[in-house]
């Protein structure tokens, strides 16, 4: 069990990293969508593109990481989720393709904004929404074990799924705005600082309202999860509420550096509250960690791989994020 739990922690660390890093990249696309006309929104779009550009591919890999850890460590869970939820997951996969390639193609050659901008922006909205519906389907216990044994339509269109979708979009938009405020300030674009600060406050407020309304949705639609959230996971949930509030206050008072960290932690604690509430079920009500885990030899090999891999991975990530923050010679005038 210890090995299975270790793998589970790595898996969830991967999902969390995906949410706060890639989530912000999607959120950037959402703000691109809302930036206004081609000329009026150009500077915002350029700021967003500059922030996302060097990091989005690396951030995206967290999803692959979580997927491969899931199918190696808990194979039946992977098979059940992907086969029952194949419709939203296919949309997510297409969203990832359209978002990523539109972004890269738009960056590559002149006057392609009109051709690829809308694809990038729209897919940035669609992808987190459908990922959220997947999360909702799992959390509300609508994915049974086996090969496509759940309802391929109704499993991900329930209230918790819709809540998950909307919350994911709002959360991504909030994170992105919070990161962009700090980026804009570092590059000295003061009007953009104000614009993104306003957007961050709106998105943060929206998140809070959605989450508040979501309490009732979860209580009625996902009673098992609700029991966990107000039980074992309550400290994390309370922490999340406090962090969210703190991040809005910091934002209001223009302490943009700490806002980044506190805002991200608010999202992290929500995700860990969900995990704690659902544990030890991986498929709610039908499959626990112990039942789903791969045999010991596989888990051992996986833990070794994860440990050694992390030793390579973390310094590399550190290098990337350090380099990104290093001012561009032409930019630091």
């Amino acid at each position: 069990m210890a090995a299975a739990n270790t793998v589970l922690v790595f898996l969830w660390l991967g999902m969390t990293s995906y949410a706060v890093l890639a989530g912000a990249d999607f959120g950037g696309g959402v703000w691109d969508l809302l930036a206004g006309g081609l000329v009026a929104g150009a500077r915002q779009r350029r700021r967003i593109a500059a922030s996302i550009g060097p990091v989005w591919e690396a951030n995206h890999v967290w999803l692959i990481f979580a997927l491969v850890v899931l199918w190696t460590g808990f194979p039946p869970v992977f098979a059940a989720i992907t086969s029952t939820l194949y419709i939203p997951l296919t949309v997510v996969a297409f969203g990832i393709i359209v978002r990523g390639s539109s972004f890269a193609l738009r960056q590559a050659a002149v006057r392609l904004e009109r051709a690829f901008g809308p694809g990038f922006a729209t897919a940035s909205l669609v992808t987190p929404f459908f990922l959220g519906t997947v999360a909702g389907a799992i959390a509300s216990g609508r994915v049974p074990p086996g090969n496509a044994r759940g309802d391929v339509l109704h499993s991900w269109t329930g209230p918790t799924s819709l809540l998950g979708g909307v919350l994911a979009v709002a959360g991504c938009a909030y994170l992105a705005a919070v990161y962009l405020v700090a980026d804009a300030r570092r590059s000295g674009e003061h009007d953009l600082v104000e614009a993104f600060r306003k957007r961050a406050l709106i998105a943060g407020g929206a998140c809070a309202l959605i989450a508040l309304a979501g309490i009732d949705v979860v209580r009625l639609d996902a009673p098992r999860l609700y029991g966990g959230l107000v039980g074992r996971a309550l400290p994390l949930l309370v922490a999340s509420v406090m962090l969210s509030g703190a991040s809005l206050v910091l934002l209001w008072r223009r302490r943009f550096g700490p806002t980044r960290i506190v805002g991200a932690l608010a999202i992290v604690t929500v995700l860990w509250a969900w995990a704690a509430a659902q544990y030890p079920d991986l498929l709610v009500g039908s499959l626990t960690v112990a039942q789903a885990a791969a045999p010991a030899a596989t888990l051992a090999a996986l833990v070794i791989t994860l440990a050694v891999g992390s030793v390579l991975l973390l310094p590399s990530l550190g290098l990337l994020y350090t380099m990104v923050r290093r001012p561009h010679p032409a930019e630091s005038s």
Partner: protein
Amino acid sequence: MLLADVVSDNLTAARAQMGVSLGWHIIVASLGVGFPLVIVVAEWRALRRRDADAMRLARTWSRTAGVLFAVGAVSGTIISFEMGILWPGLLGTYGSVIGLPFALEGFAFFIEAIFIGIYLYGWERLSPRLHLLTGIPVAVAGIASAFFVVTANAWMNDPQGFHLVGGKVTDPNPWAAMFNPATPAESIHLLLASFMVTGFVIAAVYAVAMLRGRRDRYHRLGFLIPFALAAIATPLQIGAGDMAARYVADRQPIKLAALEGQVHTERGAGEHIGGLVINGQLRGAIVIPHALSLLAHGDPNATIAGLDSVPADQRPPANIVHVAFDLMVGAGVGLLGLAAWWAWAWRRTRALPRSRWFLRGAVLAGPAAAVAMEAGWVTTEVGRQPWAVYGVLRTAQAVSTAPGLFAGFYALLVVYSILTVSTLYVLMRMGRGRRSEYADPAGAMAA
């Protein structure tokens, strides 16, 4: 609808979808494996010899590679989804055996993506030397990630490292699964193929330019670096191909029979070039007597199993596999000829062959290498049918039973058609030297 009908429909849809997405990804992924090496060589040359042309090439290529990496990363992602969306029976059952190389690949992909970000955006932010160094992890991780993925495919051809007890997997040994007997030949073959695709495709672009009269040093060097890489890989690939064929002869005799269109078991079998299996007979093939027995087993009189040595429901579709195999070998031999022409001229004159026919051949070599890659992939994948995991799990047992899979396939066709056209359009536009004001706010990517 009966479950059997769903499975049969889904099998067609799932195979079509997997085929399109993998067939697309394999080309972009090959470029992802080979391109970093080409760029690093150019940059290294630029720094070492203060070669401005080489530096311009490295910069231009890094922009192109940036687009290809992005498109490759996202087109690879849908494949990890499809492992479950389309084939829940494969990883749902065998994930504990063969998941590990994917986890290793995940880390390799991570390193690749991180250092690509550093490399592409680091031209102005890092010292020239450090920048060159950051290209090396990209090249190494690309090779590593291809290797890991191929070990999983090799395992599907030669499943090891587990026991089956009453249909359940027990005693998984992921390391033994990864390093199965098919791994050496398959991984070497694929890596060399990736270098060939990369080298010949990039060289083809410069060959076109040279045929149009742009024969300055910049274009010659742009041709030479990738072409040399591919030309070195080609003869090695012939050896690796022989190794792979011997492996297939030993461990997958029915796949060999399909490769060769060998219908009946035969002692001292000949090598069949061309031809089609019609009504249980191979027709229209050129036969080199005893050559197959000799090549496969080192004995001109060795026995070669025919397709009819197994029941009909265990045979792969022979014609697809045979044609694909001949196409791959034919393209490979043609590329070898071109590589030899270049090597001969280079030895004598330290210059490219003068003939325009050489350049015309080099233009063709780009698509030919890509075709050989696709054909080789069809050979090994279709040749394994009807098995997803050879001798253990039928493809039909692995497929999803969800209704409506065909819709996903049609949607994929639409998305990939747009993706293909857009990518080619942008690459061609980049080739004409027009760059985006978005590339970097302050022009970090501007040469």
